[in-house]
């Protein structure tokens, strides 16, 4: 079914189709309409799920952690400071290997308060062991929410589905609602490895020692470091799992085919722009314009941010003259986090491209297509590397 609705509604429809059993959430702008839509779906019995209106984001994720530990498919959503308030539980969910899915409706972090979009919230949580996927439009939001459960339950790790506050969350766009039967074919019912059960008692997440230790049957159980190593290797494996999930999704729904980075006029491009979220779609207008002027340029929209698909990125950027990274986040005192990751991915390749970093749109600062056009055009012409100095676009000092 094709409808025209807000991005938050697309996310809610994805949650419903995925057969989520427990939803816990606390309202925060611009995530709130998603929470409201889910409570509406549950209250009207269109969705058969437990909806827990908790008193904080910390509790929202705690409810999901426990529900998932007890064998139920669990979902929550948040933005900005709500995500930061969850930080402890983010590490816990990943460490406990729980396939929870959470929508992060990206918003700038306070202080000072802003309700507008940038990517600082999710990117500041990149080292919590969560998989992070970024969406460009409403179709991707609903599709990615469904795929996120498939990925999470394959690798037993939680997934953040990130999309831009207001730009996507509150705007209306047409999108296709997948058929319920097809979704069930794609995503079978959740079968946990282990769940809380009085018939088969176990103590979950108890204190662990640094060294491996034998259990009562003499089997060696991993120490803390082995458990961490396993999470890391499984997240590295998630790169392939994401590709496989995308292939399976395409077979059933006909959409997808670019699981890591979406390419727009990149095949023959001398210069490529890399960015995330809705910005990569806005950048397409710039590419169209510059192509008309004969500039050989394309844009990559990164979809999988953690684990970082380094090989795919290095392959995509290999042999380019210029790589221009535009991002809405900053590692204060250094540079954009995506920029650092891209440089790291390029290390070891033979033909290092010139590379530059542009920081823009922080706290919802307007991103004018004209300014993007100017920045890309100038950078392509200048053809110079600025490996550690980000340029700020739209800054008014």
């Amino acid at each position, binding site marked *: 079914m094709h409808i025209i609705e807000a991005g938050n509604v697309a996310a809610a429809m994805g949650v419903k189709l995925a057969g989520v059993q427990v939803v*816990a959430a606390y309202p925060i702008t611009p995530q709130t309409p998603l929470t409201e839509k889910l409570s509406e779906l549950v209250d009207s019995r269109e969705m058969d799920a437990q909806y827990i209106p908790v008193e904080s984001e910390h*509790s929202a994720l705690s409810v999901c952690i426990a529900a998932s*530990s*007890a064998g139920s498919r669990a979902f929550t959503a948040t933005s900005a400071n709500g995500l930061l308030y969850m930080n402890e539980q983010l590490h816990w969910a990943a460490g406990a290997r729980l396939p929870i899915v959470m929508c992060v409706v990206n918003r700038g972090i306070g202080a000072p308060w802003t309700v507008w979009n940038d990517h600082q919230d999710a990117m500041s949580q990149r080292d919590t062991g969560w998989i992070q996927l970024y969406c460009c439009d409403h179709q991707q939001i609903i599709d990615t929410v469904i795929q996120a459960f498939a990925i999470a339950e394959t690798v037993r790790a939680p997934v953040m589905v990130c999309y831009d506050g207001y730009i996507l969350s509150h705007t209306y766009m047409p999108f296709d609602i997948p058929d319920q039967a097809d979704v069930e074919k794609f995503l079978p019912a959740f079968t946990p490895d282990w769940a809380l059960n009085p018939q088969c008692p176990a103590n979950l997440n108890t204190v662990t020692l640094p060294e491996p230790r034998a259990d009562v049957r003499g089997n060696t159980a991993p120490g803390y470091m082995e458990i961490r190593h396993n999470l890391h290797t499984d997240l590295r494996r998630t790169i392939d799992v994401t590709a496989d999930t995308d292939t399976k999704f395409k077979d059933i729904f006909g959409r997808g085919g670019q699981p890591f980075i979406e390419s727009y006029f990149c095949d023959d491009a001398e210069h490529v722009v890399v960015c995330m979220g809705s910005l990569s779609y806005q950048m397409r207008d710039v590419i169209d314009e510059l192509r008309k002027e004969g500039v050989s340029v394309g844009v990559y929209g990164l979809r999988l941010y953690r684990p970082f698909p380094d090989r795919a990125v290095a392959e995509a950027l290999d042999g380019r003259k210029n790589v221009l990274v535009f991002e809405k986040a900053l590692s204060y005192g250094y540079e954009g986090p995506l920029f650092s990751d891209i440089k790291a991915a390029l290390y070891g390749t033979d033909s290092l491209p010139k590379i530059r970093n542009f920081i823009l749109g922080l706290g919802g600062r307007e991103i004018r297509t004209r300014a993007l056009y100017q920045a890309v055009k100038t950078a392509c012409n200048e053809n110079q590397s600025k490996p550690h100095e980000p340029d700020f676009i739209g800054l008014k000092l």
Partner: protein
Amino acid sequence: MATKKTTILNLPEEEYVHPGNRACAGCGLSIVYKTGLKALGRDSILVVPPSCLTVLQGLYPIAATQLPCLNVTFASTAAAATGVLAAMRAQKRPDVQVAAWAGDGGTSDIGLQALSGACERGEDFIFICYDNEAYMNTGVQRSGTTPQHVLTTTTPFTGKHQRKKDVPAIIAAHGIDYVATASAAYPLDFYDKVVKAKSIPGPKYIHVHTPCPAGWGFSPRYTVKIGRMAVETGLFDLYEREKGQFRLTGASEKMLGKKRKPVAEYFITQNRFKGMDEEKIQSLQAEVDEKWAGYEKIAQGVC
């Protein structure tokens, strides 16, 4: 109250705590935990934050408990219990008893917000707070329920200046149907309260006074004796608040109309009260006397 009281003769024999756990010698929690799990029964799921109980239960991959247990972060106990309940409803297993079991720090301080939220939402679970009156697991630091003048490692010279936070009263203010206090020195009274709590829908809160030899500074063999003294001096009272109706129970009920032991007798048994002078003792005695004068009035139906 027509409910039959449990005695040592009809207490269930099945044990849910393995012998040889990691609790300290003389641990009051050991008594309470052993008894409480008997009352909760086999078809239960526990939720436990960091606390001495996490230590008692043992280190991965070995556990001292025979009930399924989810260890959670310090602030999240009641929210996690909510999550387990939600999963049980989603899986059509509403008969599973969910019990959260936290220490006084995890209840009165960092966990209070989640507990308040769960009580307000009316979650159908039992929250048991074992109150050993400090952060014992991390080495005896003051908590919200540490009594006034007690020496801890964060109140090392002059003792805690503030009074003990009255958590049962805070929880009762949520208007939930069952709030009770109990003591490790009276395990059967505690057992009966847990059993009663199981029969009441919605949130239930039981606050258990739990003597701690290492933290309080007394010999491990006196745990029960000291727990009893806290009750006999009227410092810690056993009561139930059912649908708002308050009544003293067990040993505390029997003390109505009788002379209580002076609080000084309790203070002298433990190193943690070393910093108290006569003036402080008398002021606390006056507080206890005033509190009990109120109980006498309630018992006589005056207010």
